[in-house]
Each structure stands twice: as structure tokens, then as C-alpha cells.
């Protein structure tokens, strides 16, 4: 679990190879495809990852049970969204309550969608600039040389301009969507 929180490749591989087959058969036995299984499983992994990073993290059950429960919920939700009919997901009935995580995950996904939209509407080179600084954590001088600015201060200035625009986009996006919903 500590490995997962540290984003450790080996731990991820271990969890992945140990549980993907189970989830795949769950999805495929319930009107899904291998691609669906992959999406759902990866989303569940993200839920697990977020959980492992939260401070009050404690898992009261096996990783297997946890992942299974999360995937089952996520898949049911997806099925109802796409109006595909499924009467009852059959499989092992051992489940743990995961309501909170699912809700938190939904909220998070919603926010990520907002961010993604805002970023995509931002346009180039602002987007790359911000991604380089905030996501890839590059230093200002690296960015300046990479993007062809004469000095780091120039780049920094540009970055702030972009950031102001991104904030505007993000909050307007956030407001319109939340106002609608």
C-alpha cells in the first residue's frame, strides 16, 4: 500500500496482474468488453490510489474485495448511464461499503473534466507552458530555454498571464456546469 501511495511501478504491476483477470471476467460476464474492463479497472485503481494517499487511510478488507466492490459499483453505474439492461450482477457477493469513495471519485472526475476542458480551451503555447511548470514541475529556466524565452523572468511573466486566463476559464466552466446541474 505504501508503494502504491508512492506511485511505485512494481507495486502497481503486482496489484494489476493480481486482480485484472478477476475484474475482466466480472465485466465480460456482464455485457462488457475487454476495453470496458480495462477502463473500469483503471478507474478503480485510481480510487485505490487516492485512498492510499489520504491521511486517514485504512483498509478494512483485502485489496481484492475492495477493488471488486469498486469495479462492481462503477460498472453498474456505467451500465445504467448507457441504458444497457442488466438485471443483477452475478458474482461473489462479498462486498464492502464504498459509497463515499465512489462519490468522492465522481466529484474528482467532474473536477478533472473541468480542468481538462479549461486547459484545452486555453490553447497553445499557454497549455504546454502551464503543464510544464505545474504538472511536470520543470524549473523556470528550463522552460525558458525549452519554449524559447529570452530569460526565466520573461517566461514567468508569460506563465502568470496564462495562469490568470486558465483560472478564469476554469471558474467560468465550474460555475456554468454547477449552475446547470
Amino acid at each position, binding site marked *: 500500500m505504501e508503494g502504491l501511495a508512492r506511485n511505485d511501478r512494481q507495486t502497481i504491476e503486482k496489484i494489476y496482474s493480481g486482480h485484472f483477470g478477476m475484474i475482466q471476467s466480472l465485466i465480460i460476464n456482464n455485457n462488457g468488453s475487454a476495453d470496458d474492463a480495462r477502463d473500469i479497472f*483503471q478507474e478503480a*485503481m485510481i480510487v485505490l490510489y487516492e485512498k492510499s494517499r489520504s491521511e486517514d487511510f485504512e483498509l478494512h478488507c483485502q485489496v481484492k474485495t475492495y477493488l471488486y466492490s469498486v469495479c462492481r459499483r462503477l460498472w453498474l453505474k456505467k451500465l445504467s448511464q448507457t441504458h444497457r439492461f442488466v438485471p443483477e450482477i452475478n458474482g461473489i457477493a462479498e462486498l464492502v461499503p464504498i459509497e463515499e469513495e465512489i462519490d468522492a471519485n465522481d466529484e474528482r472526475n467532474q473536477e478533472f473534466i473541468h480542468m481538462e476542458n479549461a486547459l484545452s480551451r486555453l490553447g497553445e503555447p499557454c497549455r504546454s507552458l502551464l503543464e510544464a511548470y505545474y504538472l511536470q514541475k520543470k524549473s523556470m529556466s528550463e522552460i525558458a530555454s525549452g519554449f524559447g524565452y529570452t530569460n526565466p523572468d520573461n517566461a514567468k511573466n508569460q506563465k502568470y498571464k496564462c495562469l490568470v486566463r486558465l483560472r478564469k476559464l476554469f471558474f467560468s466552466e465550474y460555475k456554468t456546469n454547477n449552475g446547470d446541474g
Partner: protein
Amino acid sequence: MDNIQLLDAIERYLNNEMTEAERIGFEQLRKSNIEVDQMVVEHSAFLNQLNKYGENKEFHTVLNEVHHDLTSRGLIREVPPKAVIAQLWKKHKRVMAVAASIAGITTMLIAGFAAYYSRRASNAELEQLSKKFENTERKVNALRAQVESDKAVVIDKAPSNTPIKSGGTGFLIDESGYLATNAHVVEGSSVVVLENYKGLEFRARIVHINAENDIAILKIEDADYHTRSPLPYAIKMTGAELGEQLFTLGYPREEIVYNEGYMSAKTGFNGDTLTCQIGVPANPGNSGGPVFNRNGEVIAIINTRQAQAEGVVFAINAKNIINSIEAISADSSNANIVKLPLSSSLKGVDRVQQIRKIQDCVFMVKSY
């Protein structure tokens, strides 16, 4: 501009990059100016959000990489979703069975109609190569019989005062006297008389007619016919290759006529796979005639030519004879009553010699 400086200040503050003095000054500003304070909180949340977004994206990339990696290493396997159909099947077995039977019946009906009408249509476009005898020809025949009666005693076996309805060609498929010809040559006739190239006539009975394949099987029932030595040619079931040399023998006239050509296409009219197209001239009277390859194996039976096109002749694949033979065997108590010749003794023989041996086995079919 102010805004940007403020943002810079906030970021440095949040990242703990400020000097002690700056920090105290900034905190003072926060306390005194609510707007700045709000901005700090908001920006901190925003950066947090951006950060999480980045981490999430990163993690997703890692997951995808892991997935790809594990798949290529064979540690996980993507299964095709075959269970869906099985499940649907299990669930809707009853409904499906009913649906399938309804669909089946409908298809049969439609196919039946289609076949009925297409046959009608194709009849207009295809010309059957059986002869329609007219009275004049009948007279010629009678004259010829008279002439030949000088040489040998030829008894006219045709029923007197009955006009010939149609004529064609037939060939032996069993030395005991079974012949194959086209169904349309003998269809609807009461009496069938065969004539060989020497002008000798034999009475024959229609044993089996398969109108769908256009194949009829006749049996010579005449005291004058003696079971002959084994047939020189074979019936080839596998058909011929495109471009293969072919030849035919038939009776478009009162005389046996040889023609040669090649295999043109593996399917017949409108892509019919029961038949093939040959590039051999054929005329009314050739119907039912055998088509040989260069080894003297029968590969097909001529049946029609396209009316609007020049030199497009269709022939029924020889393997269709089998169906008729099976039908006969099923009817009779004696299984394997007809033994198709399966080996040819004409391989590598000069064409003239081949024809000399084959011609006894090819008859003119006259139906009354």
C-alpha cells in the same frame, strides 16, 4: 499587472519561497485586505486542483503502461467478450427459437418465390439447346430411314404419326444402358428414342428427372442393345481449370458433330455455381451433350446458351449427376445400380482415336 504580481506573491508564499520579512509583510496584507486573503485561499485550492489533476493524469499513464507491459509479457490476457452471446442465448432461448422458425419460414417462402420468378426470367434470357422438330425434319428423317433400309433392316422405333417434340444429346454413364441428358430435352415426353451415330435406334425409359439441376437419367430398354465393354471415359467430379482445353460431341444435326474450345468461367448464368461457362460453340441439339477435357473425362453437360450474347454457353457440372444417381439408388431396391465410370482410358490418346472410342456412347435423344 497588479494581479500578476499578486499571483506571484501568493505562489511564492504558498511554496515557502519568501524571506522571513516578506512573509510577515504578506501575512499582514492578508489580514488587512480580505480580498487578498480570499485570493490566497482560492489560488491555493486551485493549485491543489491542478496538482491533483497532474498526478491523476500521471497515474493514468502509468496504469496504461503497466497494462500494455503486462499484456505483452502475457501476465494478463484480454478475453474477447464471447459470454455476451451465450448469456443472451441462455436468456432468450425460447424467443429466439420462435423467431428463428418464423424467419426460416419467411426465408423459405421468399426464396421459393424468388426461385420461381428468377427461373421464369432466366428462361427468357437463356435459350435451351434442345431441338424443336418440325414436320419437315421429320420427313427428312423418314427419308433417311428409307435410304438406310436398303443397307440394313432398320426398324423405325418411333411411334408412328406422333411428331417429335424435342431432341438433344445423351451419353452413357453406365455400360448397362444408363444415359445422362438434360431434363428439358425429355420433359413431358411419353416416349424417348435414342439414335446412335450409325443411325440405329433404341427405345429408352426415363428413370429420373431432376428439373432443378436440369439432369435426366434414361435407361435403354431395348432387346437390340447389348451391354457393351466398359466405358472409355470417366465422369470427373472436380470440374476443370480455367482455360483448360475442352471438346464436345453432340447432335445439333442428324449427324454427330465435334466441337472444341476452352473453359471460360467457373460459374454459370448470374453466378450459378451448379453450372460453368464454356467457350465451345453449341447449337440447338447439343443439349445434354457431354463436355470432355483433354484426358477424355466428362466435366460437364451442355444445357443452355445466353440468347443475347455470342458464344456464351453454359454447362452443368458433372458432379451434379451424382445427386440424380443417389436419388435413383434411393428409389430402387438395388443400391449402386448405376456405377459411374471413374477412370478414363483415353489419357494421352490422339484426339481422333478418342472420338472414335467415345462416339458409340453418345446418342441423339428424340422425345415424342
